[in-house]
């Protein structure tokens, strides 16, 4: 059974050796006015160069928070309270601010979703694209501008030399996203995080941007972490997937296997709600209810309130992420019941 059109085309198999990014047991607390809540709870995953890992989940599931902790851009109200993030040969969470800044660009880089807001409105784009070279390679303004023009050409901006003097508001949404990506890949980072890079774009532009990311990944030999809520994007562009729910990882594994044969009721629910898979003439199935408030996560399974399989055990005991195959795992007491026969 082929769950979605174009599921994971032939990609190189996972390489052996050190992953470019290894997140282990990462936990993040949010200090709010009404108390401290756990926004990211014991999240682990790793990604190798040349591969794409998708962090998939609903708004507020902790996927963006995970990304921001990796690049060290959490707001002051959020605090990493445990775990490690290994990249560039070290645990970046143990580094000081200065050492961490040195990695920001050459090792870890991030693309945000709202490109208009993410570009500085009062600086010409050429200056902004050249900034990584000024900061990390100590280039002069003129040299950095040449690098910026080169980057603009690579990401497909027409007439890059003339356009380098333009301001962000003078570009279309798709072009702005290209500029933002160009800026993020300027120093060929080991790991590129892309936080909903296509959410604000229409479908055709979306496809172009995803293709650009894919080309750049191959050309610059980067590991890509794609943060998204879009199942189709994951199916088409990711090799591996980590599905998050209420700050927890509920299922992880190669996209093709997970989507063909989900082992967590949440994953199953998400896939059933895709229109292409639904039976014609019947109402589209949906995952009923909404995720728990982070301040009110139940002691047992985080998904129990919406789970069709929930029983007594789920209320008392939180399921651990357990292997369901050679490269995959799910956090459900009854994952075997979901196994397709």
């Amino acid at each position, binding site marked *: 059974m082929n769950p979605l059109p174009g599921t994971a085309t032939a990609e190189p198999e996972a390489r052996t050796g050190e992953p470019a990014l290894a997140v282990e047991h990462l936990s993040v607390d949010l200090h709010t006015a009404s108390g401290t809540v756990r926004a990211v709870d014991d999240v682990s995953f790793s990604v190798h160069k040349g591969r794409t890992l998708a962090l998939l989940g609903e708004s507020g599931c902790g996927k963006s928070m995970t990304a921001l902790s990796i690049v060290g*851009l959490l707001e002051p109200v959020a605090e990493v309270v445990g775990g490690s993030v290994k990249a560039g040969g070290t645990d970046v969470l143990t580094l000081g601010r200065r050492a961490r800044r040195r990695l*920001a660009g050459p090792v870890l880089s991030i693309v*945000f979703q*709202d490109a208009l807001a*993410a570009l500085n*409105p009062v*600086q010409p784009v050429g200056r902004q694209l050249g900034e*990584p070279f000024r900061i990390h390679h100590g280039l002069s303004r003129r040299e950095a501008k040449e690098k910026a023009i080169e980057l603009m050409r690579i990401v497909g901006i027409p007439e890059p030399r003339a356009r380098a003097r333009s301001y962000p*508001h003078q570009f279309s949404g798709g072009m702005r996203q290209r500029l933002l990506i160009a800026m*993020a890949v300027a120093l060929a980072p080991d790991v590129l995080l892309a936080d909903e890079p296509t959410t604000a774009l229409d479908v055709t532009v979306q496809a172009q941007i995803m293709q650009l990311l894919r080309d750049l990944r191959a050309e610059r030999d980067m590991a890509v972490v794609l943060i998204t809520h879009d199942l189709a994007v994951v199916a088409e562009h990711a090799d591996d997937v980590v599905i998050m729910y209420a700050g927890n990882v509920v299922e992880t594994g190669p996209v093709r296997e997970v989507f063909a044969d989900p082992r967590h009721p949440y994953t199953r629910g998400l896939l059933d709600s895709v229109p292409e898979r639904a039976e014609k003439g019947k109402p589209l199935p949906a995952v009923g209810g909404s995720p728990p408030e982070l301040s009110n996560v139940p002691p047992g399974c985080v998904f129990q309130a919406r789970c069709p399989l929930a029983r007594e055990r789920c209320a008392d005991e939180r399921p651990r992420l357990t292997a369901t195959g050679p490269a995959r795992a799910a956090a459900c007491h009854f994952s075997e019941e979901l196994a397709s026969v």
Partner: protein
Amino acid sequence: MTTFLRKRIVSSAIPLVVVVLGVFILARLTGNPVDLYLPLSATAEQRAAFSAEHGFDQPILVQLWDYLGQVVQLDFGESLRTGQPAAEMVLEAFPATLQLAAVTMLIAIVGAVLIGSLAAYRPNSLADRTSSFLSMTAASIPDFWFAIMGVLVFGVSLGILPTSGVTGGPEVWVLPIATLLIRPFGVLVQVVRGSMVAALSAPYVKVARSKGASEQRVVFGHALRNATMPVLTVAGDLTIGLVNGAVVVETIFGWPGIGKLMIDSILQRDFAVLQAAVLLTAVTIFLLNILIDVCYALLDARVRQAVPA
């Protein structure tokens, strides 16, 4: 840019004309100068002769027409009091006011950018709350009260600063500038803080940090320029307020600027001088507004383009 300038000049010239008309008419409502300049015993003939000499016997519209005709030829008339050309008197007094306003605004802007940025860098820190409280207080103190208290404490009780006048060393500047400074400074600290807090939490600041930019680069390279817009608007407004507010300060401290000249001219029904003083002030404000708009356009490309060609 030239189109932008031309449009701005045309649209700001209209208020200028309105001001000129308004002052001409309002000044004449303050009373008849004949009563003030001639002794009570003057005969009707003497009064008529005085009025005829200065044109006060004409209907107001005719007076206005004559006045406009003279202004176009840059003839602003003579002072009733001294017989000196009004333009000369006004231009003599103006630099004193400009100096006062320029020094005040310079101190206010530089100080407010430093303190406001510092407060915005860590919102709700002790530094932030202290500066918020002090700047709020500063912005709320009436200037005439502050001036009088300043004279009382430093001039009379402690005797370390002159109570008024411009003769002496740099100490003559202290009280007038402090009085003019206190409100703009308080207001600007608040505005700088507010716009810096907004700028520092903008996504492009996060992006700058994700490129490994140092904190100086983030604050001064990315955030400050974006925070400048609202600061510029308010600073421009406050500067205009200063040129006007000089009336109070110059009167209290005997500063020979245009504010004092205006008050004296009103008291003396010295219409020509008053009109020239108001016209010069209006032109200054007009130029200041254009300068502010040009600054906007230079700082932000979006403003340059917002004006249709």
